[in-house]
């Protein structure tokens, strides 16, 4: 008799838990694939398409579906490492056909710009302002350095220039500091450098 009570009790419990779990599965269903979002957050969002996908999110989806994690030159090794941690795969060096880029931004030589708006259409982040037959210019703060505007320019007036270093952005690399070496000349006339 007690055996049946035990069986009944366990069956009842199983039904209750099953119902709870089933309800929870419907009630708290997660719509989007959170993995894709996580990958997307790691990617640098330059939207440059160097990975072969039209933007960072498509590449994130591709990674979630098993694509290689080493196709993002703007992200570099840091991104690969993070992706490797997230995906639980080995961190592979950057695809040899792609070179890790230093940070650059587009610069339009404004004298040469003919105002064709082609670069504006190419810019994935709307970082170029201008109008038809008017000079265009790049908003440096918004430019992701994706290179996509360089190709469409009919007069080749867009350059990718390395981002100028500023005091705020400077990384303490003491090896790179040009340390002044003074000679032991007791007469110090030449020490005050003037412009």
């Amino acid at each position: 008799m007690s055996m049946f009570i035990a069986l009944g009790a366990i069956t009842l419990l199983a039904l209750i838990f099953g119902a709870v779990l089933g309800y929870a599965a419907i009630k708290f269903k997660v719509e989007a694939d959170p993995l894709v979002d996580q990958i997307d957050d790691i990617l640098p969002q330059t939207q440059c398409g160097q990975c072969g996908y039209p933007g960072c999110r498509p590449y994130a989806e591709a990674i979630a579906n098993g694509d290689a994690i080493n196709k993002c030159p703007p992200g570099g090794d840091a991104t690969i490492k993070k992706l490797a941690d997230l995906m639980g795969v080995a961190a592979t060096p950057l695809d040899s056909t792609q070179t890790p880029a230093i940070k650059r931004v587009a610069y339009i030589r404004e004298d040469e710009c003919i105002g064709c708006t082609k670069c504006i259409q190419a810019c994935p982040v709307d970082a170029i302002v201008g109008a038809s037959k008017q000079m265009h210019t790049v908003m440096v703060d918004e430019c992701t350095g994706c290179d996509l505007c360089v190709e469409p320019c009919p007069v080749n007036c867009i350059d990718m220039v390395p981002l100028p270093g500023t005091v705020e952005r400077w990384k303490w690399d003491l090896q790179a500091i040009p340390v002044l070496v003074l000679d032991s000349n007791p007469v110090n006339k030449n020490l005050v450098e003037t412009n």
Partner: protein
Amino acid sequence: MPSLFQQIKAGKLWDFHGGIHPPARKEYTSQKPIGRLSLPERLYVPLRQHIGVAGALLVQKGQRVLKGQPLTAADSAMAVPVHAPTSGLVLAIEPHIAPHPSALPEPCVVIEPDGLEEWRPRHGLNLLEADRSILLKRIQQAGIAGMGGAGFPTHLKSGGSAGIDYLIINAVECEPYISADDVLMQEYATTIVKGIDILCQLLSPAAVLIGIEDDKTEAIAAMQAACSQRDHYLVRVVPAKYPSGGEKQLIQLLTSKEVPAGRRPLDIGIVMQNVGTAFAIAQAVLEDIPLISRIVTVTGETLSQPQNMHALIGTPVGALLDACGFAPEPEQRVIMGGPMMGFTLPSLSVPLVKTSNCILAPTQQELPAANNEMDCIRCGACAEACPATLLPQQLLWYSKAKDQDKLKEYNLSDCIECGACAYVCPSEIPLVHYYRVAKAEIREQTRDELKAEQAKARFEARNERLEKEKQERAARNQALAAQRQQMVNAQQQQQEIAAAAQRVASGQPAQQNLSKEDIIAERERKKAEARAYQAAKAEQLNNEQSAAAAAEDLTTENRNKQGPDATNKDAAVGDARAAAVAAAIARAKAKKSAAEPDNQVAAEPGTGSDKAPDTTPGAEAGDARASAVAAAIARAKAKKAALGADQQPAAEPVQPQTATAAELAEDPRATAVAAAIARAKAKKAALGADQQKAAASLTTETQSQVENTAQNPAAVLTDGVVNNEVQAAKLSTATPEDKEQAKKAALSAAIARAKARQQNLPAAATTPEAAENNNAAASTLDPKKAAIAAAIARAKAKQQAATDNTNSEDEA
């Protein structure tokens, strides 16, 4: 237990964790009076010398400026202006090496002093009349930023309204060598106290704590004397220990309170100002002297006369050093700031700024450069020395590994970069350097993340916008299409109405039902004509001879066959014209059906069908000339078609269609339509077939099978159709209108057929002869002949069907 305030009032001091006791070496300068520097040749005033943003530039190149004239505007809360340190000429506004370890250039105003020291008009404030906002504005416009080292805008720090318990004046100056604040207090104690008064007016704290290290006896005495009238000004003498001058350390030392990580002293009711800042405030408010100069300790064993100098902001460091008897040794280092927290200058043209409190030019023996780094032995000395109770060895470990999560976990951001850990390190590891690199990287990463976030948002916004535009465009196109459709419909309706009205007017109600079909047929015909014309144009005349020869053979054959067939037709001759039409149709179909199975036989149906159009005009006995013309046209077309004659396989697909066409052919008009459709299809098929010629041999087998089934019924049907038509013709003879209709129909059908032939049948080269025959027949105006021709056609169709069968059988 006395309260905290009572304890502080009673003079109790607390202690902070760690700290070191480096040799102070302040005696070089602390006992000397403040020196005055003669005007340098050039002054380089950086536009931004504080934490925040530079104000908008107010001067131009070539402009003469007066002493104390603002060079930039205080146009935002975070902007602190800079002023002309002396009167002179603005030589340039250009990037110049900034007082920063990076040696990166920053925009500077270059001023050439004229030596007149001509002041702008000055107006000191009366403290009794001035309210808070005026005072704060004056402090901001005087360009005062924290002079202890960080350079935080003073007006922001002093503007915090209520709930300030303690104002702490930092006069600790714990770093070795530096004695600028010490001598300032010795000489200007009363002015400093006036500055403190102004700060008290702004902040109204419960008590003012003035922290001074115990090795500055003269300064302590001076300050105590100056503060003697104010009993809530408490001069607190703290034991010399580095870094007790750190903001958080001094707060802990004087009040036992700890500033939480990531918070500011203001959050716990404390404001701390440097003693130099207090002095600057007093000068700015009372005498309207903006922050254009400061006291800087110029020291080091390479100098013959180290001392504190009162120097203008913007003075190149080299000028200061020279004034103090600089005798550099090989690989001389010049450090801005103290030996613990300062940085090596990249050039001696770096200007003095508001936060520079010391220029240090030590000898190698005095302060050897740390270049003997060894591995960490995990002795833990750094952890004991750390005033922020961090674990420097762990931070070093994670800094080297660039493990930023772990660095955050170990509170790297709380590191004050005091250098105590590096000082005690037995392995001479420059720990602070690693932390600075790591901090810069974290900062950079944070910036990148922010930028990525923005880029993502912009990218998504752009995509959304493009999608919306696309949808709008699609919607617009749809609307336009609908509009167009409506217009077309309306037009058609109008046309129909007009046509109906016309018919009613002309008394021809009979045509009502047929009008639409007529229109379609006509349209098809015209199209076909146009197509044929174009095809003909494109084709070359090079196959003419062979085609003509082939045609001759075939026509003779045809003539032989005509005889027996003629008799059959006689019976049907109720109406010659109708019969002719029917016959023509029959022939056309027969031809088509026969044409396909064998490429070589293809020529035969051509002759058959060629006759058809010609006979119809012939049958149309009313106008011989017209028929002749039509025949000529037909011939010409046939010729052209024959020249392009390598499309045999093309005809094949047409066959089943012709069969169906035959089935439908109860009405000559309908037949014409069907024929036109068939032609169109044949053309398409021909184009396709042209390319597939190679494959044709393989497919003939299956094709012939198809043809077997298709042709037999077709042949039967054509006879049936002819009969039907004949009957119809008989019935229709009653009315003249019907006759006319029949004529028209016959014409169009004939033309249609002719074209079909041209397009489908390469072998149509036979047409010229056939056409001639038929022309002759037409000119006789004899219904009998027409009947004969029809009969011949039928016979041929039969024969061809038979040969087709045999052929296909053979092939099969």
